[in-house]
Structure formats: structure tokens, C-alpha cells
């Protein structure tokens, strides 16, 4: 009955705006849409009723929908879709969109808006969403003209994925969803207004190759923009024997178990990575943006180095550090062109120095009577054989996960890096599990961040996601506590958390809950969690609340001020 109505409408060669949205999404290959309905988006939901290929995941909070779309996009390399109604629905997307912007995730957000006649009148559930999201989206648009809906949406899908990916929001008034538009609009070819430069300038690439060949202390500084460039990156590093250090976003772009890899650099990076980059005479930055969490005090960062900066976004080049060889282009294309040109530099002495640092200052933690968080991460690494897609929340556990979970393949480490949004981990892990249904996905979260979005455990239960949520529970906002200890004379203010029993919370939602308090319980519990395949598992890992995350370069300082913690 319902289907025949749709067919009848299409026979007259018009289609509702809402149905057109569904058609465009399906054609673009979208499978999942994470969202929460409301008045202004009701016509879209009505159209979803007839859309078997585009499945909707009802998230209990729009922030979760946005993070899930981000997790989906980052795990799959495709684009994630989220939707919310007007006003409060749309404003709840804001944190997720800001996160996607900072970490360059391809996210399409479709929001409902009040009917056109009511826009600007402070109507019920109205908010000026395009204005609100302008600084935190790559692009956004309010669709005033129903005939422009299809084009706007196609452009948004193209934009969110092209060049430097990012969130794009399309705000659709309810009556535009309801308006019948000519079905022909769906057949119009789409031509993007602008195409990013992906091929690097040949002269610059030759200069870069020359600089590499002449360097004595080169390093590769690998960011999130290198996730899809791991093949030529690996070839360049291995053939030229260049040490590789990854950012939080770059984890997975290069095999961290390879001896060439020095792990993560920056505030909580390895001491040897930080010593190496600061002694380097050549820094090859690939898809990295010289974030302050990496550089510390800018003027003291890499004082002896020249910089080759490869980035698809021209506005990143020279933003924080002037580049001697700026190369605008897609990291994979540029590295493919650069790799054969570079002659291996003489790096034997350099490697001797690096190995000395690596031996003298390894990552380490001291066992104690209580379960140590690092111990927990190492056990997670061990039982998952380093094969999982790891999604983290924000805080100490995030840094420990980055330090102790070694990633080998691209898109297997997903974390809120740029925005540092607590509450990100669990929802993004859900999105990642939708993207990679046959892969083991683990969320490593803190007790603080998990409580910001754990209501959506019910969503994971509903979809039978075999997700593992490992709560590194130190009964506090650990990173804040660490800063108060080190920089605020141990004046602990508002950091101690009275937590629920996470295992029982999980059970109440219909998930499996396990509590671990001692080291000897750790591995059996983790192994048990891996056996569950039809629902999420929450493992509450009660760890030493006093443990701090080291090494640490205090905010705004340089490698000279690094605290090794031993």
C-alpha cells in the first residue's frame, strides 16, 4: 500500500524533498544514518520508512549520532551520516561536528529546520543552525529553494570527502522536505565547483627529494592526513631508513612494531621520539599540522631543522611553522612521486644516537599492589593480538592507549585528538563497529568520559554490537587530577568521581558487565569479553587512582622541560 503510493508519485515525475534526500544518500553509497527524529525532520523519517537500503540507527542523544558518524567515517574511509531535528536536536550535534572538523572526518549532517515562513521569528524549536555551525563545519547550507536541495546535498557529500575531509551540514526546512520537486533533478549530473589540488608541484617534490638525500638526521612526522598514504610512506621510510614518529591522528599510518617507528611524539609521546625530532636536521611532515600538543613551545621546536610540509590544505602550510619546502597535495600522490626520487641519506650515526635514547628512556611503568592502567592496556593489546580497531575517549587512558597499543594498519586507531571531546570514545566505537562489522572493535574509555554518553549502551545492545568497552577506571578525572598534582600544588578540586557500578549499569542495559580489581583477574576477564559476540561487553578495570601519565612535556614548554616520571 505504502510502496504503491511512492510509485504513483514517481510516475508523475515529482518526488518529495525528503524522498530525494534518501535517494541521493543511497546513490552515494550511504548505508547507515545515525540520528534522532523530531518535528522538523518528520518528513525525512517518513521517507526513511520506505528506504530499506538506508538504515537508521536511533541514537539516544544527537551528540552520539555525530560521534558515531565520525567513527564510521574514520574507520571506513567513507563518509558518515548523522541527522537531527531543528533547534535542540541540531545544537546537540555541535560537539560532534566540532570534533569532526578538528580531526578532518568526512561527516554529512542533515538537520531539520522550521518551515521557511517561520525562519527568523523565534519559532518553536528554531535555532540559526548554519550560523551556529559556521566555525565548526567545512561548509554548510540552508536550503531555501526546494529545487536546489538535490544539488546542495550532492555538493555536501562531495565536499565532506574531498581534499581535506570535514563535516558539512545541510539544514532543510520541514516544508522543503515536503515540497514536491521534479524527479528529473535527481538525474542531473553533478560537477563540483572546486577540485582540490592533489598532485604535488614537481619542482617542490624534487627539492624535497634533494633535501632528504642531503640530510643526516631526518625524521618523518606523520599525521592523520597520512592514513591513506601508508604504502608509499612505508616504502620511503624503509628504503631511506628514516625514523618515523606518529601523532595521535597518525597512529596506524605506519607499522608501530617496525623498529623504524619511534611511536608517538608530543606532550605524552616517547622521550626518544621527542629527542629525535628536536635534534633532527630535516623534518618531513606528512598530513600533520604542527598542533601545540605536538610542538610545545613553537620557537623551541626543532631548532636545527628544515621542514618539508606535505598537506592537502594550503592554509595549514606555514600556519605554525614556516616550511622550507611546502608541498600542497594529497599525501599518497605526493609520496608516490617523491619516494623514487629520494636517495637514501647517510643515517648510521643518527640511528646510533636514536638507539641510545631508545635504550636509555623506554616507555615504562612500575608494577604495584594495585592494577596499573598501563598494565591493563598492555593486556588489551596482548589479548587482541594488536588486531583490533581501537577507539578511545579523552584523558589519561587515551594517552596510555596511544603509548602502549601499537597499531599496524591504517584507520585502526580512532580518538578525539584535536578537540579532545570527552564522551567521544564509546559512540565513535559504535560507528566504527557499524563500518567494520566483522572486525574486533574495542573502546578504551575513562570513567569520566564514559559517563558523558553511556546512555547509548542501549543502542549498542539494540543492534547487538559485539563491542568491547574497557573502562580504565581510576575514580577520577585523571588527567585533570594529574595537572592539579603537578601544576596546582595538589589542590584537587572537582576531580574525584563517585562512580556507578559500571558492570551493573551494563547489565541493566542488557549488555554484559565484568568488574576487574586485581591484576590476576585481568587477562581472564578480557578473554571472556572477547567470547561475547551478540552484545556489547563493559569491562570495568579498577586501576591505581594515583598513576600518572609520563613522559610529559608540560603545556607550552619544550622538550628540555620533559618530565620522565622516573
Amino acid at each position, binding site marked *: 500500500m505504502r510502496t504503491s503510493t511512492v510509485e504513483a508519485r514517481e510516475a508523475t515525475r515529482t518526488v518529495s524533498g525528503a524522498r530525494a534526500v534518501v535517494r541521493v544518500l543511497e546513490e552515494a553509497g550511504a548505508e547507515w544514518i545515525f540520528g534522532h527524529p523530531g518535528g522538523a525532520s518528520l518528513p525525512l523519517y517518513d521517507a526513511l520508512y520506505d528506504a530499506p537500503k538506508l538504515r537508521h540507527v536511533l541514537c539516544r542523544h544527537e551528540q552520539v549520532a555525530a560521534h558515531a558518524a565520525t567513527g564510521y567515517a574514520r574507520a571506513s574511509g567513507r563518509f558518515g551520516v548523522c541527522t537531527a531535528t531543528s533547534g535542540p536536536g541540531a545544537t546537540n550535534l555541535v560537539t560532534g561536528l566540532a570534533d569532526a572538523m578538528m580531526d578532518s572526518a568526512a561527516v554529512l549532517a542533515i538537520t531539520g529546520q522550521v518551515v521557511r515562513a517561520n525562519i527568523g521569528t523565534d519559532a518553536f524549536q528554531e535555532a540559526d543552525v548554519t550560523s551556529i555551525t559556521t566555525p565548526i563545519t567545512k*561548509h554548510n547550507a540552508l536550503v531555501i529553494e526546494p529545487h536546489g536541495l538535490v544539488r546542495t546535498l550532492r555538493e555536501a557529500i562531495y565536499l565532506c570527502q574531498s581534499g581535506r575531509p570535514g563535516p558539512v551540514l545541510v539544514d532543510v526546512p520541514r516544508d522543503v522536505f515536503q515540497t514536491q520537486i521534479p524527479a528529473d533533478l535527481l538525474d542531473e549530473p553533478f560537477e563540483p565547483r572546486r577540485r582540490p589540488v592533489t598532485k604535488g608541484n614537481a619542482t617542490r617534490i624534487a627539492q624535497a627529494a634533494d633535501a632528504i638525500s642531503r640530510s643526516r638526521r631526518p625524521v618523518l612526522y606523520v599525521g592523520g592526513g597520512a592514513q591513506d598514504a601508508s604504502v608509499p610512506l612505508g616504502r620511503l621510510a624503509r628504503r631511506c631508513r628514516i625514523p618515523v614518529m606518529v601523532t595521535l591522528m597518525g597512529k596506524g599510518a605506519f607499522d608501530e612494531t617496525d623498529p623504524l617507528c619511534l611511536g608517538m611524539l608530543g606532550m605524552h609521546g616517547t622521550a626518544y621520539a621527542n629527542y629525535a625530532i628536536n635534534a633532527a636536521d630535516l623534518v618531513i611532515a606528512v598530513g600533520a599540522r604542527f598542533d601545540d600538543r605536538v610542538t610545545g613551545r613553537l620557537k623551541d621546536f626543532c631548532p636545527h631543522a628544515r621542514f618539508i610540509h606535505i598537506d592537502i590544505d594550503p592554509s595549514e602550510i606555514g600556519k605554525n611553522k*614556516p616550511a622550507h619546502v611546502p608541498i600542497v597535495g594529497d599525501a599518497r600522490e605526493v609520496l608516490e612521486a617523491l619516494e623514487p626520487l629520494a636517495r637514501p641519506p647517510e643515517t648510521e650515526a643518527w640511528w646510533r644516537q636514536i638507539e641510545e635514547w631508545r635504550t636509555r628512556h623506554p616507555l615504562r611503568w612500575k608494577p604495584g599492589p594495585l592494577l596499573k592502567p598501563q598494565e591493563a592496556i598492555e593486556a588489551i593489546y596482548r589479548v587482541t593480538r594488536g588486531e583490533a580497531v581501537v577507539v578511545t575517549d579523552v584523558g589519561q587512558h587515551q594517552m596510555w592507549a596511544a603509548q602502549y597499543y601499537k597499531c599496524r594498519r591504517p584507520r585502526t586507531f580512532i580518538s578525539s585528538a584535536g578537540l579532545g571531546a570527552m564522551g567521544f570514545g564509546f559512540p565513535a566505537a559504535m560507528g566504527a563497529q557499524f563500518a567494520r562489522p566483522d572486525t574486533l572493535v574495542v573502546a578504551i574509555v575513562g570513567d569520566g568520559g564514559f559517563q558523558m554518553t553511556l546512555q547509548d549502551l542501549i543502542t549498542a545492545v539494540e543492534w547487538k554490537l559485539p563491542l568491547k568497552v574497557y573502562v580504565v577506571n581510576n575514580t577520577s578525572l585523571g588527567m585533570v587530577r594529574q595537572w592539579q598534582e603537578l601544576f596546582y600544588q595538589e589542590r584537587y578540586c572537582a576531580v574525584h568521581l563517585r562512580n556507578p557500578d559500571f558492570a551493573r549499569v551494563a547489565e541493566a542495559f542488557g549488555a554484559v558487565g565484568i568488574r576487574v580489581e586485581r591484576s590476576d583477574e585481568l587477562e581472564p576477564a578480557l578473554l571472556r569479553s572477547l567470547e561475547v559476540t551478540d552484545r556489547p561487553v563493559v569491562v570495568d578495570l579498577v586501576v591505581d587512582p594515583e598513576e600518572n601519565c609520563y613522559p610529559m612535556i608540560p603545556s607550552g614548554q619544550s622538550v628540555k622541560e620533559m618530565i620522565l616520571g622516573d
Partner: protein
Amino acid sequence: MTDAVPIPQVRSERRVLAVLVDNVPGVLLRVVALFRRRGLNIHSLAVSVTEDPAVSRITMTVECPAILAESVVKQVRRVMEVRRVRDVTDAPRTERELALVKVNAPAGVRSEILEAAQVFRARPIDLTEKTVTLEVTGSPEKIDAFLNLVARHGVREVARTGSVALIRGSATT
């Protein structure tokens, strides 16, 4: 490959930026927001449609170090509706501003004001028993100078358009 790391120029100076954008709602907000974010005060801003009705021109002057202007200009270029953006500060250019100036002009001093206006090629466009309103165009400095000159008579109100600028010669932005 350059040898020395360029030393960032930190001295603030007046930068003149020309931005060509799609003539659609919301563009100005996007462009201006990027300056606001960096805490840059926009000294003047002139926006209007161009010879092509689909395109608007934004001319803005800001006070900031050249290197900061360069960084923001690159970010402005990311805005989808921005077609072209150029820092024209160092280019030979024609630059003009228009001001309407309402000056106290009782009978006794009126001729003196009008005489001064002639020197600045300012045209009287409105007259009352107590005031004269003058239209003056020219470089921002010329307008400043004129305002200084008539200040002692009492300036009641000024409306300035902000600078508009074009590259000199046949070249376009």
C-alpha cells in the same frame, strides 16, 4: 631550497584585502568570522555587488602583521563561496573612500568651511541654517585630514564607507 628560516614579521601594519565572493547570504559572516577568531579588528569593510551580479566584492582593511594576514587569507580561501582573495597591500593600487560629513556652519563661518572644502574637492550636498553636509572622497588619509580641518567647527556626524581598492593598470584582482 631557501637557507634561512624566514623570521616572522611581527610589526602590525595596515593590510588591504580584496575578496571576491558568491553573492549569496551568509558569506560575509564566514569571512569576517575568520578574522574575529584571530582577534583581529577590522578597520573598514566595504561590500557590494560587482559587474557580475553573481559576484560581490569585499574590501577590508585590518591592522595586523603581514604574516598573520597571509595565514588568515589562506583560511579565507577555504571558504567555499570565496572565489578569489588577495592581499593587495603591496600591489600598486587605486584606493578610495567616501565620507559624508555634517559640520556646524552658522552664517559667520560658512564661507570659510566651503572654501576649505574646495581645497579638498569636497562637495556640499545639503545645507541648513546651522549645518552643511559635505561629500568627500579620496584616500583614507585625505579624509582624516579633512575631518581634522573642520573639527574646530564641530563635526556633528560622519558616515564613512571604508576603503575600496582596485589594482592599478589593466590587471584584475
